[in-house]
């Protein structure tokens, strides 16, 4: 028998032994169990104001675990929108409409895995969405590493107010995978990757594009595929405070590239207050077919400022107050959050005065959270 053959057999035997040892190492810790999310109720009032748009409404979420096996979450979210944005006032007249969003989710914990099945529905007078999601979180490596895998499928019906003849669909697929890793007793890090695929009607039947200065209905491609990767780290600083940093890079088949960087700080103040503050910088490059005023005839053309070149700087803060507490029974908190957005467009002009458009917006969130 050649030396290499003998070696091959020996190595195979060793491999088997190593595999067995590793297997028992893994099984020794296999009795751990993932826990269901905590029972919780949230009631929120949200207000958005900026760029001519005002949107506000209530939202409620209730989560309860049943027989310690499954957890059920029900939520609804209402957006009453009053839209007088630059797109609307320069091409039509301001309007009001209401969007209702409902969600139902089921969480199931088995051994080291947590499985979440969620359905959602969103209704506007001219746009409805139905979605289905599945997310699995798996704890491994003694609970130090959590692997997340998720999938969402959504289908939209697009209509047009005032034009009963207009009807189209859009379908979306989202795939996500992520790893959260405990680095030290005070630091956590995570990486998340998500791919989104859309087909169908991806534009707006109300929006116009400008070609040689003339208004034409916009033409968006009927497919879009995007990827985003996000890195996050969060650490406890030792004096009842924590800091977090995030960076996300986004790219898609419409040639849009975007960077998001966020820095946040949280701190307990006294016995009953928790304060958060963050800064978020967002920078986006325009889509291939985006043009403020197209100087050529192209298959696709859009003047949708959402697809343009712009910067968005957001600063925000939140304060949480521990209102009523009965340990073992319930814990009620009152929260208030504010965000200030500052968007500067690089290639979208305000047709009313010819200069580059910029807008400021403010978000207010007032809510109560209770765990029981």
């Amino acid at each position, binding site marked *: 028998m050649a*030396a*290499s053959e003998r*070696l091959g057999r*020996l*190595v195979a035997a*060793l491999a088997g*032994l*190593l595999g067995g*040892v*590793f297997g*028992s*190492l893994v099984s*020794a*810790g296999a*009795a*751990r*169990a993932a*826990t269901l999310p*905590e029972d919780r109720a949230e009631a929120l009032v949200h207000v958005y104001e900026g760029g001519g748009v005002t949107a506000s409404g209530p939202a409620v979420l209730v989560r309860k675990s049943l*027989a*310690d*096996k499954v957890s059920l979450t029900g939520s609804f979210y209402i957006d009453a929108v009053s839209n007088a944005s630059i797109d609307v006032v320069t091409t039509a007249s301001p309007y009001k409409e209401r969007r209702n969003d409902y969600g139902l989710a089921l969480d199931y914990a088995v051994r080291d895995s947590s499985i979440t099945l969620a359905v959602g529905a969103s209704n506007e007078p001219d746009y409805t969405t139905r979605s289905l999601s599945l997310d699995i979180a798996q704890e491994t490596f*003694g*609970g130090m590493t959590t692997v997340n895998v998720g999938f969402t499928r959504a289908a939209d019906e697009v209509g047009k107010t005032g034009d009963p003849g207009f009807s189209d669909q859009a379908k979306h697929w989202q795939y996500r995978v992520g790893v959260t890793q405990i680095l030290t007793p005070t630091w956590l890090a995570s990486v998340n990757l998500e791919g989104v695929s859309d087909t169908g009607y991806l534009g707006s039947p109300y929006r116009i594009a400008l070609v040689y200065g003339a208004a034409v209905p916009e033409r968006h491609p009927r497919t879009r595929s995007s990827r985003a990767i996000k890195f996050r780290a969060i650490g406890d600083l030792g004096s009842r405070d924590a800091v977090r940093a995030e960076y996300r890079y986004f790219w898609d088949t419409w040639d849009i590239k975007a960077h998001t960087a966020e820095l946040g700080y949280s701190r307990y103040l006294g016995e009953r207050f928790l304060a958060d503050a963050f800064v978020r910088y967002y920078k986006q490059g325009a889509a291939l077919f985006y043009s403020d005023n197209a100087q050529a005839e192209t298959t696709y053309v859009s003047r949708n400022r959402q697809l343009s070149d712009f910067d968005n700087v957001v600063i925000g803060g939140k304060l949480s107050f521990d209102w009523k507490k009965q*340990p*073992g029974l319930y814990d009620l908190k009152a929260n208030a959050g504010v965000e200030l957005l500052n968007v500067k467009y690089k290639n979208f002009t305000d047709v009313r005065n010819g200069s580059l458009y910029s807008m400021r917006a403010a978000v207010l969130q007032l809510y109560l959270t209770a765990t029981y």
Partner: protein
Amino acid sequence: MNDLKLLKRWLLPMLLVSAAGAAAAAVQLSANAPDFTLRSVAGANLRLAEQRGQVVLVNFWATWCGPCRQEMPHLNRLYDKYRSAGFVLLGVNIDDDPRAAADLAAKLGLHFPVLLDTDKKVSRVYDMSAMPATLLIDRDGRVRHIHRGYRDGVEQTYEEQVRSLLKE
């Protein structure tokens, strides 16, 4: 032979390291439970070896661990039911702040001794790979059952195992 020599130099040590890793668990079934002395919330020192002759349940818990808090009322009931039959329940708390442990123990109305392992010395010796962790020790001081984590209904298993250990 060159290749076998290389093998001996690299792979066998790796094999030994992983084998050693597998056997390194400080607490083994049917072996003596490592002895410890900890201060209880009430103030007195309690030593595990002094409980010989009784059936002991050692439970490692923390105030910040949800399943641990869920398990507490069941352990309390188990203690009340069998304490007169020679059953001892020791709740080893591993919070950084012993006052949090004392507060929660008082609020939950725990009757069994709550021991404070603030510097994690005993936890390191026992090296349990999950929270909460429960060990059942027989009258001779040997570890007979190990439970890692808490699942709804496992208190039934605790009760059965305690009864069988008490009968010995």
